[in-house]
């Protein structure tokens, strides 16, 4: 019978030393098994990534096509340093509860108005939606100081300021086009 803790500890350690000697060695193939499993796991992970890609890519492509179809902005060409009249077709918006229209301009594009020259300083304006847009278009006059593709954003809001419709007009301002007042619609 062993009494002291120290003695028990020594005996247990000796016992494990003897046990270690008696234990069989691990299989010589253990290392190979581990490395093979790692390789297999890596292959599986790669396969999973490919499968995910194969499933998601048609979906992504579909979403891309859809977004192009739905959001494809109108594109126009216009000369720089020239006031151009943009007529945004709003016929299809008639009857909806639109209270305001917001127009946001990109850099280097300004509003132009002979009557309200201070509009040139504004980057964004809000227009009260009037039934007087009888021609089924919202007229805006803008002017670009540099060439390039510019995007004019339009938002149509109801009385609660909820955005009902968003549009984006892409205008390709070109230096080479003939100057003079023109209009796009």
């Amino acid at each position, binding site marked *: 019978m062993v009494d002291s803790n120290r003695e028990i500890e020594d005996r247990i350690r000796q*016992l494990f030393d003897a046990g*270690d000697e008696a*234990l069989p060695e691990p299989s010589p193939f253990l290392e190979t098994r581990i490395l093979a499993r790692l390789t297999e796991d890596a292959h599986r992970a790669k396969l999973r990534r490919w499968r995910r890609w194969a499933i998601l890519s048609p979906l992504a492509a579909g979403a891309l096509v859809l977004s192009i179809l739905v959001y494809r902005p109108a594109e126009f060409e216009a000369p720089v340093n020239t006031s151009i009249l943009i007529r945004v077709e709003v016929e299809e918006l008639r009857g909806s509860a639109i209270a305001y229209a917001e127009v946001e301009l990109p850099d280097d594009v300004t509003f132009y108005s002979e009557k309200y020259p201070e509009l040139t300083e504004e980057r964004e304006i809000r227009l009260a939606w009037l039934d007087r847009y009888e021609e089924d278009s919202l007229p805006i006059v803008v002017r670009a100081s540099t060439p390039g593709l510019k995007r004019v954003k339009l938002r149509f809001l109801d009385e609660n300021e909820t955005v009902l419709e968003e549009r984006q007009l892409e205008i390709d301002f070109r230096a080479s086009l003939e100057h003079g007042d023109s209009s796009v619609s």
Partner: protein
Amino acid sequence: MGLLLMEKTAGEPLPNDLVEAARDGDQKALSLLIERSQTQLYRFCMYLTGDPRLSEDLCQDTYVKVIERLKSLREPGDFRGWLYRTAKNLYIDQWRRAKKREVLPLDLVQGRHGALEEPMPDLVLQIRSALACLDPESQVLLLLIDQQGYSYREASEILGITQAAVTSRIYRVRRTFWEAYEKP
């Protein structure tokens, strides 16, 4: 390669440069890392499971889990501790699952793979039988300290308990184990 000339001394800390090389994707270093640590880990698993095949499976699962996350190891000196912590967790998970399914304890299924396997030495069977009197956490604690030679502090880090808890538990665990071992 200098690393290949190092002698196989189980139980000693694994050289940091070897762990770093394996972490950086050096396949030779990875093989050597397994080679240099597998015997000790296998013995640890053998005492826990009492079955050579289960031990090899546990070893394999442990290495795979650790190596697949090796890139996240910041301190190469922590590799051995991480290995044993992973083995301990896997073993306890298996033990809990087995308990839930109410299958035979691991030490009772020894030798089920047929006569081709070498019989376990009596001494190992006696040790395994005495270990079976302890709960899995206590088995791991005893093996880490008295079989693997970890300090109380290292064992506390592997087990995720305080050093004071290790100190207070180990005496009771040793006594229970020794009494079970000495029983005729």
